[in-house]
């Protein structure tokens, strides 16, 4: 046993896959201890807030201001406010008033604004320009004037008695707050999803549930596969024929179809994560059965098994002591593959809307489903779907690497 383990951990593939998987497992276990926010709490009002640090505006007004004189602050502020569309519109105007096109650089905010201020004239009529467009330019000019001013912004509070606004504070363009002194700051490294939930926290919780689903599905499938494979291989005869008939049948009938039919029939209310896991396990055991049976058949007539038979050991004793130890490595490999298949199957089912009930637990598939329903991929909200795909791929990748690593050790023909 010790020797086998040493051998396994000398395989670079296995070690690489194992470390990725353990890394994921570690994050899943440690993250909830550090960040205790409930994963399904809806914190954002609105859909798909981009990743970043969210600072309470209200609290930052109350915090001590620090004056920093930064030269590029104004330029940055304007650059941030001036969208690509506005820049193109400015360029259009400048071209219309006959500024050579190669002198206009829409990426250079300072120069562009300079050209705009000197060349824009609200009274000027450009032939072919619609009224709406002209009004757009007037609005644009107004908003730019606001940006260019160096005056502070007044903070006013409504007087409870008179209803009049009373100025309490002025925020100057050079005022800064220290983010550490603002009481309410929320870091959303992956933004929020379509419901306004913190994607990272949800993703960690989802990974955990998906791994559990994978484990349950894998164990169910491997157990069924192992028992049927042992029976078919060792007992043989009619039992073998019947089991192999069923196995071949399930091999050719696409398991997706069975999964869809069963989970649809179970109904939305009864579909918990655990039920889904068991259903996945029940529809994916046949690969294991085939592999185990083939192994058992090759072992069945070995000398040590025959010796055991002659000594009058019972079938269960022979299977436990003389056969199982020899196929243990294959069973472990099958289990690893089944776990990864289980996670993928859950994701697929959920995308179809046949995954676990949505209200209780997040799973990787459910996150994917909602991202697809809200068209995150078309709207460019990458944080809602891309991390999910990466996590699924990483889990499957690490498990498969472990599997091929084991394969190389236990199947010498594959060694390079």
């Amino acid at each position, binding site marked *: 046993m010790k020797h086998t383990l040493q051998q396994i951990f000398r395989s670079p593939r296995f070690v690489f896959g194992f470390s990725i998987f353990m890394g994921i497992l570690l994050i899943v276990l440690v993250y909830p201890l550090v960040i205790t926010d409930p994963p399904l709490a809806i914190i954002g009002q609105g859909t798909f807030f981009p990743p970043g640090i969210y600072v309470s505006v209200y609290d930052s007004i109350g915090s001590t201001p620090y004056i920093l004189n930064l030269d590029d602050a104004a330029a940055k502020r304007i650059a941030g406010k001036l969208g690509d569309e506005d820049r193109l519109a400015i360029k259009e105007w400048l071209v219309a008033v006959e500024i050579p096109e190669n002198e206009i650089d829409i990426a250079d905010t300072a120069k562009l604004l300079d050209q705009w201020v000197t060349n824009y004239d609200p009274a000027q009529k450009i032939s072919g320009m619609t009224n709406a467009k002209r009004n757009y330019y007037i609005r644009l000019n107004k908003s730019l004037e606001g940006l260019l001013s160096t005056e502070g912004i007044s903070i006013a509070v409504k007087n409870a008695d008179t209803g009049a606004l009373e100025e309490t504070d002025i925020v100057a363009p050079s005022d800064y707050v220290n983010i550490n002194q603002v009481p309410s700051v929320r870091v959303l490294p992956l933004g929020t999803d379509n419901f306004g939930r913190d994607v990272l926290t949800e993703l960690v919780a989802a990974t955990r549930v998906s791994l559990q689903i994978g484990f349950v599905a894998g164990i169910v499938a491997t157990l069924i596969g192992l028992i049927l494979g042992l029976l078919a291989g060792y007992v043989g005869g009619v039992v073998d024929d019947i089991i192999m008939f069923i196995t*071949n*049948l399930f*091999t*050719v*009938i*696409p*398991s*997706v*179809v*069975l999964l*869809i*039919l*069963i989970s*649809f*029939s*179970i*109904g939305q209310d*009864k579909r918990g994560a655990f039920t889904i896991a068991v259903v996945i396990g029940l529809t994916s055991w046949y690969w294991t059965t085939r592999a185990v049976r083939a192994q058992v058949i090759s072992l069945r007539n070995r000398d040590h098994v025959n010796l055991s038979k002659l000594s009058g050991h019972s079938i269960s004793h022979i299977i436990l002591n003389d056969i199982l130890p020899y196929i243990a490595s294959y069973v472990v490999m099958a289990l690893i593959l089944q776990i*990864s298949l289980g996670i*993928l199957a859950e*994701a*697929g089912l959920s*995308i*179809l*809307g*046949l995954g676990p009930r949505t209200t209780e637990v997040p799973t990787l598939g459910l996150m*994917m489903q909602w991202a*697809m329903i809200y068209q995150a*991929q*078309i709207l*460019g909200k*990458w944080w809602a*779907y891309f991390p999910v*795909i990466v996590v*699924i*791929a990483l889990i*499957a*990748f690490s498990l*498969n*690497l472990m599997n*091929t690593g084991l394969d190389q050790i236990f199947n010498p*023909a*594959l060694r*390079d």
Partner: protein
Amino acid sequence: MKRYQKYFLNKLGWFLVTLVCAFLLNFILPRLMPGDPVAAIVSRLAQGMSNTTGIQAIYQQYADLFGTNKPMLEQFFIYVKNVMQGDFGFSFSQYPRTVADVIKSSIWWTVGLQFPAIIVGWLIGNSLGALSAYLKGSFDRVLMPVSIFVSNLPAFGMAVIMLVIFAVNAKWFPTSGGYGFDLIPSFTWSFVWSVIVHYQLPFWSIVLITIGGQAIGMRSMAIYELNADYVKYARFMGIKDRKIVGYVFRNAMLPQITGLALSIGTMVGGALFAEIIFSYPGLGSTILTAVLGQDYPLISAVSLVITIMVLSASFLIEMVYGILDPRIKAAQAD
């Protein structure tokens, strides 16, 4: 051709048996579940549609069609009769279209997309795997990890990534559908072109997914064969390398064909998700709308159609295998 007769008949028998079993499963599975289908349908009808005459018509039709209050055995014969006639009843979610009509309009999109994509992916994947086993070295060291990673991407993940890169960001291809939304199916140049453009992304994402797994399988097969005794013997005999490689890959190819017959169900399953991501008007998207619309007759019929498709494909592949594998000819000759 006579030599193959036994093999073909054997396979044909197996095909028919699996077909019957798939049929039975399709009938029994939903009925085994707690809560009989009629109750489920009635409750779904109550919550779903606004068109009352539609509800009445469907309910009446469904009760007549499936004879749901009759004993199980009788129901089964009614079901068989209906399926033979291609009559699956009305679709709940797309009333007044019939299920047969919905399937008829989507099945050819799926057949036309998936089978070419899987075959192309299989061919490319096997060539790459064989090359990797033969060339070894840096080609192998680059190709293998890439293949392992790609084959572990779920099919929908690959589809989403392709969609975002080539349709949303680069805008080379449309994001969804089987043809331009402003076109009416016809044999005009603009329609055909639109179909071709819409075809590319779903096609290549299925091809890429298929390549990975096949390359890995072919590589280990080819390595195994390259180390076989007959190769060593042939080398000692001084047979040209090129010729040996030909033998090796023919031998390594055969298990891959069997593998394709066995895994085509899984592949089709994955490809259905690629269809969903691209809203391709095939069976995948039909399943999605059926599930979202709680459309039981449609789900049942689509799953049956997919099963029949997969079984027929795997039957065809086994026929090809029978022709290619000389051992079958030899066995029949005895």
